[in-house]
């Protein structure tokens, strides 16, 4: 029953989609079967694998670079209150700027290509991750810090053995959200800054002969991969060393 509900909702939506597609005047909007055929065509031509790999490659680089720089930076800023006071206003000013607003500048700096896209993804994940790490440190219960100090931990050890694990549940949530954002941004970046990847597929299919079946096929792939990424991150939250941080 639990599985039946989402399953039947999806089926109903597909039927409505199918019927609607066959009632339209322009005939450009594809029905589900045409989309499926489009996916198979992309698969046969080798484009699907190529574009998925291209998109994932950019996300992996941009996101990983953001994770390895933002988390240590955020933890340090949260720890050294003066660093936070110095940089927080700048961070808060940059955060509301959509990563997409950076597209012209990233093309100016890095030209059309992978690096421009990776830079955009990096930016999109870096700022929220830094802010989240900073907050997470601030929320570490003082009793745990005191206990760590009482056992004679040096500052670097305290950071690694108490602050990082205490902040981890909050960090994982931020990591999950920013991976979602990175995946949103790669698609947008690929529409403008490169000529491969799932975002490129969508623009290209429309420009090269109104192939809306391929447009929707690209969208479906983006959704599926996004879902898988998110489910993967959700698994982390179930780890026993983290579960304590998510209430009961």
């Amino acid at each position, binding site marked *: 029953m639990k599985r039946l509900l989402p399953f039947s909702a999806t089926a109903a939506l597909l039927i409505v989609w199918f019927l609607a597609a066959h009632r339209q005047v322009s005939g450009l909007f594809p029905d589900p079967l045409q989309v499926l055929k489009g996916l198979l065509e992309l698969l046969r031509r080798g484009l699907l694998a190529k574009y998925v790999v291209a998109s994932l490659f950019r996300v992996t680089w941009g996101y990983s670079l953001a994770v390895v720089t933002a988390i240590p930076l955020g933890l340090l800023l949260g720890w050294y209150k003066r660093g936070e006071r110095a940089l927080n206003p700048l961070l808060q000013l940059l955060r509301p700027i959509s990563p997409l607003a950076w597209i012209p500048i990233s093309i100016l700096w890095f030209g059309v290509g992978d690096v421009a896209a990776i830079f955009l993804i990096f930016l999109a994940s870096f700022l929220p991750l830094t802010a989240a790490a900073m907050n997470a440190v601030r929320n570490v219960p003082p009793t745990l810090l005191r206990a760590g100090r009482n*056992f*004679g931990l040096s500052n670097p050890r305290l950071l690694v053995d108490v602050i990082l694990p205490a902040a981890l549940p909050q960090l994982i949530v931020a990591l999950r959200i920013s991976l979602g954002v990175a995946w949103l941004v790669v698609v947008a970046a690929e529409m403008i800054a490169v000529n491969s990847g799932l975002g490129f597929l969508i623009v290209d299919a429309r420009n090269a002969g109104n192939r809306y079946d391929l447009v929707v096929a690209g969208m479906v792939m983006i959704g599926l991969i996004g879902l898988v990424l998110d489910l993967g991150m959700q698994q982390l939250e179930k780890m026993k060393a983290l579960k304590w941080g998510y209430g009961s």
Partner: protein
Amino acid sequence: MTPPPKVSIRGLSMRFPTDGSVIEVLSSIDLEVKDGELVCILGPSGCGKSTLLNIVGGFLKATSGAVLIDEQEVAGPDPRRIFVFQERGVFPWLTVEGNVGFGLFRLGAAERAERIAYYVKLVGLSGFENAYPQELSGGMKQRLEVARALAVNPDVLFLDEPFGALDSITRLVMRSELLRIRRAEKKTILFVTHDIDESVQLADRVVVMSTRPATIRRIVEIDMSHPRDLSSPRYIALRDLLLGEIGLAHKI
């Protein structure tokens, strides 16, 4: 010649600046604690017991006066003296073993494992080595914190209302556990409580504090050997004496 006191508190005063004014919390406290003694600090809520313990533990700096442990002035927290909080001090991301071994990072793996096993057993947590704190009851978490403290072999323990959050049955069990552990491991213990019965059951001496600014009203020696009979006339007399000192009539 008498041996020097383990802990010596001399003319200790503490004032907190609050917006606009200054509140005086401790006012010239003098106290000496002998090696291996269990001293209960008893006083009404908000009088400054935790503040006093935090200063002795090196987590707070007093406004004036000094604290000496082993004739050395306390300058900060030290692994030779461990503070036990109300169960919330255990690390939730570590298992029972991980928590007990937390302070043993300077030891080799074999000795570490041996000590962990010993203290897990001592506090009665055998079988829960791989459990996480959220899988333990409040009393078990409290034992875990005591085990983590004992594992580094400190010579002084500071306990700030360690059993305050537990139900009354568990609290009684935990007290006798503490006394049992104390027989196995001779430690100097400073135990803060606002529970009169608790202090008569545990302490060698009870230090009664006044309301804020706290001064020492009286020090009562509990001249009863363990195990203590909770219905003996002596127990009741001591309890009544402390009730009187706290300023409560023994009728409700």
